[in-house]
């Protein structure tokens, strides 16, 4: 069977999918009903000799009811949708389950920078793991993120998690997710952010907790003591947000 949505991979993905199908079902019924009535009226009342039109203005109380009764039904459906929607929104955006991991995310032209805490489990310590376009999280753990932008708007978009949040310069926006399936997923940018917007993307890797801990430990371990550190390890461990690969010459413009 064709899947209309990408396979869900977060705790609240099922809530969103459920809501999307609920709304689709409700408006789908109305849509089919309305189109059917429209087509019926068009066919039934096509011009035929001997069948003149009737003089119906829709001002009588019963005629007004033809319109208003279905519209009250629509109002009821609207309120059901609003209620269901507010419930899901409240769970996703207005509650914060106790986080097991905090990650800092920064959008910039044109990359995602992810700061993972190192083995000490805390951010802003020397063992932080800073990666460009690469985020790793353990499965079934609540991850709280702090989202920033250093230049234009960006939008963190991970379809399988049903997660989308704009990054706005000058603000730190907090959010959370809990991935429920191991695997790797695309991290896209959903807000137009300049020439390479369409190429701005990273990868989310969801691992078993021990695999994740092993990855953090390996990334955070200091480069080999021997003076000639391997370039690959160095860049992986110490890529700083201050030295992105492709920052355009914008600092002057901002400072001004």
């Amino acid at each position, binding site marked *: 069977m064709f899947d209309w949505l990408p396979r869900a991979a977060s705790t609240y993905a099922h809530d969103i999918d459920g809501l999307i199908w609920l709304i689709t079902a409700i408006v789908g019924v109305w849509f089919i009903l309305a189109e059917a009535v429209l087509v019926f009226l068009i066919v039934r009342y096509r011009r035929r000799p001997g069948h003149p039109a009737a003089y119906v203005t829709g001002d009588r109380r019963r005629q007004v009811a033809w319109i208003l009764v279905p519209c009250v039904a629509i109002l009821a459906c609207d309120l059901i949708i609003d209620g269901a929607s507010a419930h899901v929104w409240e769970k996703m955006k207005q509650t914060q389950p106790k986080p097991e991991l905090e990650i800092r995310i920064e959008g910039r032209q044109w990359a995602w920078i992810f700061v993972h805490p190192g083995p000490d489990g805390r951010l802003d310590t020397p063992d932080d793991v800073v990666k460009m376009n690469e985020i790793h999280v353990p499965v079934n753990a609540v991850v709280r993120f702090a989202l920033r932008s250093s230049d234009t708007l960006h939008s963190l978009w991970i379809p399988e998690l049903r997660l989308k949040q704009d990054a706005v310069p000058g603000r730190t926006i907090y959010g959370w997710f809990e991935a429920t399936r191991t695997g790797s997923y695309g991290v*896209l940018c959903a807000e137009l952010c300049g020439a390479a917007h369409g190429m701005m993307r990273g990868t989310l890797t969801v691992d078993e907790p021990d695999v994740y801990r092993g990855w953090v430990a390996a990334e955070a371990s200091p480069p080999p003591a021997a003076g000639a550190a391997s370039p690959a390890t160095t860049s992986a461990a110490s890529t700083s947000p201050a030295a992105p690969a492709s920052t355009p010459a914008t600092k002057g413009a901002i400072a001004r």
Partner: protein
Amino acid sequence: MSHDGHAEAAGLWSRIFSTDHKVIAKQYLFTGIAMAFLGGILAQIMRLQLSNPGHPVPGLGVVQGIKYNATVTMHGTVMIFWVAMPLLLGAFGNFLIPLMVGTRDMAFPRLNMLSYWTFFLSTVVLVSSFLVPGGPSPVGWTAYPPLSAIPAYSGNTWGVHLWILAVALELVAFLMGGINYITTAINLRAPGMRMRDLPLVVWMQIAASIIFLFSVGPLVAGAVMLLLDRTAGTGFYNPAAGGDPLLFQHLFWFFGHPEVYVLLLPGLGIVAEILPVFSRKPIFGYRMIVWSTVVTGLLSFVVWAHHQFVSGIDPRLAAPFSLTTILISVPVAVTLFCFMATLYRGSIEFKTPMLFALGMMAVFLIGGVTGILNGSAAADIYIHDTYFVVAHFHYALIPPVFFSFFAGIYYWYPKMFGRMMNETLGRLHFLGTFLFVNVTFLPMFVMGLRGYPRRVYDPSQFVALGNMGGMQILATIGTAGLLFSQVPLLINFFGSMKRGRVAGANPWRANTLEWLAPSPPQHGNFDEIPSVYRWPYEYSAPGRDNDWYPQHVAPEGALSRKAG
């Protein structure tokens, strides 16, 4: 004689810089049609790129990066500001309001002329942005800062400058037009014409103009601040200077969402005029339609933040904006149901204007119901900025902007140009348009549900979300078909000016006052200003030989209303 020569020269001059509302309407009409082809070609360029990523579009190379972003931006800008507005408001508003309320011209004919020429200037500025170094604006039709505010981020200086200037001028032009529409419809009605005798399309034009008047100020202010940020070193939208990028989004959508209803209402108004004439029945629920229009207009001012659910606004704002957004379905449904009830026990004749009016309703339903999904804040987290939204707003805007426009053109062409358009070509045009709109935009719902983001020139990179290559090709075929389907219209539109059957004053046997004037109406419209005796929808009234009863025809033995 030299005197005649002088008169001719003056005639040419006054034909170009005319204060006649009908000439100005045609100026808006032709400018809008020309811009529609520009917008359509830009759409086709995008579609060719998207269905064949990485390969060059014939004649343009690979349309990627800034080039693609500029194509997206200009398509949206042109279609909203330079096609929808001049066609629905500029052309139909100007042509219909004085004729339908039974007066000789707009309340302020010179302001009306200034409105068109300001619009013309804005068109020149916009089109010239294609020629400046760096090309036209690549920052999206929404022009969100900081991308739009700081040239280094967008890589474009002059294109964005000119874009802001052009949009601001365009808004000023329609502000002048709107003042005229409202004043004319309220103050210059023919003797005896009460507000409840106004044709619905005039009501809708008034409502649209009022909505526009109240919403446009913040955007003009926002655009000026944006221009100052770019040129004078201010920091309204620059967080480093204490500004806030979200401010612009609020100003933009405070205008931007009401703008949707500025376009939808005149579109619905056109349908409301055509349904009674071609089913020979009164419009169903005139007062319900007027009141639902008022409610729609009021609600349209408190829905704007549904464009910003994931923008970083306070999450507590989502539920109230979600509620107002979804509630707007009720007044819109009242209007649509009244339209449908108008068909009930009618005698429907499927002339081309009626085909497009019915098509408008059928297609708009898709845009309407999918809007509920976007309006739900939680569902919108997933669909926002995907192709689902692209599909939704094309389904919401193409019916009023194109279906209604086509319906209106086929219907009022005889009045505008004195001749009938060809029915066979009209049907061909309808079939092609109806079919290919759906071929273009139905696949986009599928792509959007799979998570494909908008404004990305190479969708092949998202194949992990599901292979959409086939859908992309289908949508591209759709756009090509849609463009090609306009050929019968062009042949019909220009060919019928010379070869169409001569129309006469009232070829559709309709009631409203414009059909009293000769086709085309002379300068001043009416030989004698008519008096109005009834509402505009008196069709198939019991006890009459004719199934229509024009507004200006005095009942036997009645005094004119102006005397009473």
